[in-house]
């Protein structure tokens, strides 16, 4: 499954991009689609087959699953 991860800060996105690189999960930093956020930040798009609970941290705001042109919200941090 391909996911797009949104973070509270750009630093967290950079850190996460390094993390997926280290574990060889295919993916990269991307400019976030405008429909997902009104901020002009960066996110990480990556392929992942394991359970999302393995990567959830307090730095993650939202995770969308990418299905074709559609984005499905699969995780949102509690306020």
């Amino acid at each position, binding site marked *: 499954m391909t996911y797009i991860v949104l973070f*509270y*800060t*750009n*630093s*967290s996105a*950079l*850190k996460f*991009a*390094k993390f997926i690189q280290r574990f060889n999960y295919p993916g*990269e*930093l*991307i*400019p976030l689609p405008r429909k997902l956020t*009104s*901020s*002009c*930040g*960066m996110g990480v798009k990556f392929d992942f087959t394991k359970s999302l609970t393995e990567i959830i941290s307090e730095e993650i705001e939202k995770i969308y699953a990418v299905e074709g042109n559609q984005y499905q919200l699969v995780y949102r941090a509690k306020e």
Partner: protein
Amino acid sequence: MNGLYLDNAATSFPKAPGVAEAVAGFLTNIGCNINRGLYTASFDAANIVYETRERLCSLFNFPKPENVIFTKNITESLNVILKGLLKPGDHVIVSSMEHNAVMRPLASLAEKGVELSTVLCNNKGELPTGDLGLQIKSNTRAVIMTHASNVSGTIMPLEEVGQLCKEHNLFFIIDCAQTAGFLTIDFLALNADALAFTGHKGLLGPQGIGGFYLNDKLASLVEPLIEGGTGSASDSVLQPSYLPDRFEAGTLNLPGIYGLNASLKYLSAEGIPAIREKELSLVQRFIENVQTLPGIQLLGPDPKQDRTGIVSLNFLNHDNAEVSYQLFKDFGIMTRCGLHCAPAAHQTLGTFPQGTIRFSFSHFNTFQDVDYVINSLRSNY
């Protein structure tokens, strides 16, 4: 540069190998901003900036890369921390060996009602830590201290100061302008809350890049001095509260950060202890020989005591400025004469207002360099 440069305490030269190439490489091949446009070059630059924060974390044992804030130099860093934290009625303590980068912001804050106490050091620049404890009051908020004097090379007992601050719940803010890249500095072991550094001295990077680290507790209390665009949370007119964006409005000095990244790589490969050992061997040779020359007063710690790569001399039978000028004119030796932006330190050492001539070495210097200076002094003074 023609001549023998011995003013490394002001700014280091030469820089680390690879620094000039890294700066030029950024300007030639990358050139774009970070956190704004979202294209490959921008991500590359963002990664280097983040990696530089990580390298600073390894160097100083800072726990969180995002709490590393870039500024143009340590003076700006100290201004942000001091002016952002201290309010009228707060009391702060410093040593009598501080640089004007600490004293001037505090003097201006004192006019606005911040109380300032100075712990008097002895005439070698050494801090009586016990006296520091006596200055603590109910409204004491912070201790701000240099890690080593830029005039005498005296190293401050920061472990003890940090312990005292911890016991009394005071913020401990360190100015490591003269020790970064020379002494092993462990932010956590020192019980520090903030540490200000500059890139262009012992860290061997370019001018125009410096920074500071502060822990989360202090970060929430320090008001930013500069606010503006961060490329994040752009739907709001309010400055983001998270780090580093809270303190990094406006475009960063990216050429400077690329240069600093290269110099940090070099420092990590060489190792701080090796650099220190080399520099101290030069300083020891210089001091041993200077002591055989008449009419020259050596300032600062006893020759056998620990110190940085700085030696301040006072020429008893000559005007220090004239000696410094002649050293350059006749021998090409570049030193720094005067008060070194630290009038309080010179008052403590007993060299105010005549000042001293400061010889500050780099580990790139050689024994031949030292001998050349000694021979020049011996034949003329």
